[in-house]
């Protein structure tokens, strides 16, 4: 029961990544693309945690944490770059 519901949840997260991939490829401005990138990375870090539950490995939580940190730093860097140029 729990594994079935978690599989459905993982599939919905994958659908979320695909929908934001559409905006990432199509978005008219740079800010659209960066927002889509942010949503994609946050959803995929949740998927990483789910994968850690499936394969029963505690270390995947660290992977998801570092992934979220790197996506945050990337979004901040791109936003600062398009705002001020440095």
């Amino acid at each position, binding site marked *: 029961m729990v594994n079935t519901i978690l599989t*459905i*949840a993982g599939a919905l997260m994958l659908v*979320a990544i*695909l929908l934001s991939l559409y905006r990432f490829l199509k978005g008219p401005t*740079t800010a659209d693309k960066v927002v889509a990138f*942010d949503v994609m990375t946050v959803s995929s870090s949740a998927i990483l945690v789910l994968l850690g539950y499936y394969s029963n490995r505690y270390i995947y939580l660290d992977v998801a944490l570092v992934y979220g940190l790197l996506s*945050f730093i990337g979004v*901040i860097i791109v936003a*600062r770059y*398009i705002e001020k140029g440095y």
Partner: protein
Amino acid sequence: MACLVLSGSLLWPVILKKDIKMDVLAIIGAFITLIGSIFMVLGALGLVRMPDVFNRIQTGTKASTLGTILSLLGLALIVPSWSGKLISFILFVGLTNPVSSHVLARAAHHLKIPMSVSDRTVTDKLSEYYNNNPKEVEE
């Protein structure tokens, strides 16, 4: 009253038997994870459907933040021995995601991206603030 207390204390080991409790907690956590993933899908759908950069920033980051927090909370209910690191991850997401969306909205406003095609986005408080205080406009 004493009979009630006595029957309650006799019922405690049955109610709090470890397997049943863990099962119920796991099912509740799975449903919370499902609700969080539904929030993620709705946020991504708003990212596709919204007409404007600022609307997209708002709906995408808010809904995906709530979805991530709910799904991690549900997983912390399913696997209670992981809950420490999951709660620190929840705090991390709740701190960093609004900051990145704020910085991004500020950059989009600085780029002077037009608000909306069909004029449904009306209020622009930051431009009003800059018009009222011309000294604070950053170069």
